């Protein structure tokens, strides 16, 4: 469990948050630039000192301004990955990795060199110097360097923002492995919905120094009262489990959490029971009064209408749906809403045109 209460003021900016975050998995601090996400992270690391602050990670208090407690940054068991990898230019890759490692007493080391270099695919780069690495390689070294301090909390400040799309897609699988294989809780600062949808289990939405929402990713992305639902790529993230595979048509069936409902996606075979994360965008969901009828649409789910909100233009509305506990969003025209007489509590069929597998 991570607790943070921070109050801090700069000319033209004030941060005021009070958050309780899960002590496991990836928590995304999501918001536009200037929303205070990086400041939150720097306060947790002790690189910045909030005027009024309380920071507790698991059972360790790192700051308690009321009792004049402020643990120096180098005494906090955290790993920090900066936006630019910030490798030490005077040290080789190996020496960069060892910089943190050798400052950790042996009994406290839980991540070893072989594991970290293998996990991030940098074993072949150890003799190189940082200026001979690509941006993506540098960032992977930066992540491994932070992991090697065996942190109790990993802070990542937009680690992909400085990279082009190709480098991003090169690193994302490593971050997903990190998420799957290590027990270290991660706070991940990002302004990219795509990264958040892929990596985060929990999301904190920040705006102008305040936390608008904090909750599990699936529920929070589907909330209509948040600006998240407004954008063109509004949608929900569903963490399904593999239930079957149709080898003939190469379609994978995914069971929605705590339901008997399934969706099917084109995919290579996976073991039953394996978790797979998908994104369903609001604009890819249409509504119909009947479940039957021939159509090329693969996925149709019985849903209940929960609520409705105006979209960012007058022609569309956003409908929040419930598929046996799994929230869904549909972006339909106002005309269609009136034709179907969509209203809360109504039973409808959601037709899902596309499901993006996030892996």
């Amino acid at each position, binding site marked *: 469990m991570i607790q943070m209460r921070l109050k801090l003021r700069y000319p033209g900016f004030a941060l005021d948050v009070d958050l309780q975050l899960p002590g496991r998995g990836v928590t995304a601090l999501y918001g536009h630039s200037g929303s205070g996400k990086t400041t939150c992270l720097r306060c947790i690391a002790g*690189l910045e000192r909030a005027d009024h602050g309380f920071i507790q990670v698991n059972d360790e208090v790192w700051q308690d301004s009321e009792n004049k407690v402020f643990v120096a*940054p*180098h005494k906090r068991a*955290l790993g*920090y990955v900066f936006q630019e990898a910030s490798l030490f*230019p*005077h040290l080789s890759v190996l020496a960069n990795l060892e910089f*943190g490692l050798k400052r950790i007493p042996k009994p406290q080391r839980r991540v070893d060199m072989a594991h970290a270099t293998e996990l991030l695919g940098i074993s072949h780069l150890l003799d190189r110097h940082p200026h001979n690495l690509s941006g993506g390689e540098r960032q992977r070294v930066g992540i491994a*360097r932070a992991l090697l301090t065996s942190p109790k909390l990993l802070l990542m400040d937009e680690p992909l923002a400085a990279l082009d799309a190709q480098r991003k897609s090169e690193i994302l699988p490593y971050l997903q492995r990190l998420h799957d294989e290590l027990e270290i809780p991660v706070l991940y600062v990002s302004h990219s919905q795509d990264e958040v949808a892929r990596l985060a289990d929990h999301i904190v939405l920040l705006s102008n120094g305040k936390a608008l929402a904090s909750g599990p990713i699936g529920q929070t992305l589907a909330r209509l009262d948040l600006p998240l639902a407004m954008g063109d790529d509004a949608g929900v993230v569903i963490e399904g489990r593999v239930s079957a595979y149709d080898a003939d048509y190469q379609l994978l069936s995914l069971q929605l959490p705590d339901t008997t409902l399934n969706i099917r996606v084109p995919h290579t075979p996976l073991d039953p029971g394996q978790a797979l994360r998908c994104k369903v965008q609001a604009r890819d969901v249409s509504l119909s009064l009947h479940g039957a009828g021939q159509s090329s649409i693969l996925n149709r789910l019985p849903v209940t209408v929960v609520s409705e909100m105006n979209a960012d233009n007058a022609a569309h509305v956003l409908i929040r749906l419930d598929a046996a506990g799994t929230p869904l969003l549909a972006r339909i025209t106002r005309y269609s809403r009136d034709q179907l007489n969509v209203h809360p509590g109504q039973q409808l069929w959601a037709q899902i045109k596309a499901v993006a597998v996030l892996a």
Partner: protein
Amino acid sequence: MSLSSADYSAIWLTLKLASLTTVILLIVGTPIALWLARTRSWLRGPVGAIVALPLVLPPTVIGFYLLLALGPYGLVGQLTQSLGLGTLTFSFAGLVIGSVLYSMPFVVQPLQNAFSAIGTRPLEVAATLRANPWDTFFSVTLPLARPGVITATILGFAHTVGEFGVVLMIGGNIPEKTRVVSVQIYDHVEAMEYAQAHWLAGAMLVFSFAVLLALYSSRKTKAGWS
């Protein structure tokens, strides 16, 4: 060989003075340079200006004030006398003090520039990798500032070797105690010993050129870390 034993002792004294001054300046100048590079205090301007004063003041002015301060009626002079050290004017120790002040900007400014150029990010990275501030200074700041440290060392040394006015004001011209090369050359010229002056002056010229050549060549190749 045309250098007299007096010339040799002047050269030896000069090298001794310049080496000692450089070592003291690196030790004293580093914290000053670090402070100037990092502080947001209003004192930054005044302190920076004081450090830079020797760049613009005539050496005789610095020498004059030092003579007063170190002399029997000056503050420092009274202190040294009460400690039983006598006065420092016209002594080697006095020359070292004068040289440290006189060459200060040539050591502090390159160091300050080097520390500023590093910025705060590497220090933050080191802290998140569990390095305490001292550890960070020796394992990150100093190695990254290496080109600046080299420049500061060379300039501090060379500038002290070239000192004349301050030495003459507070050290006078005592053989083997305060008579450095530049003063020795002055003496030769005063005594119309132009041949002797030529040898020493030529040696200084070659030395200075060699130092600057080393400095500018190293700057070219060691800029950055490529």
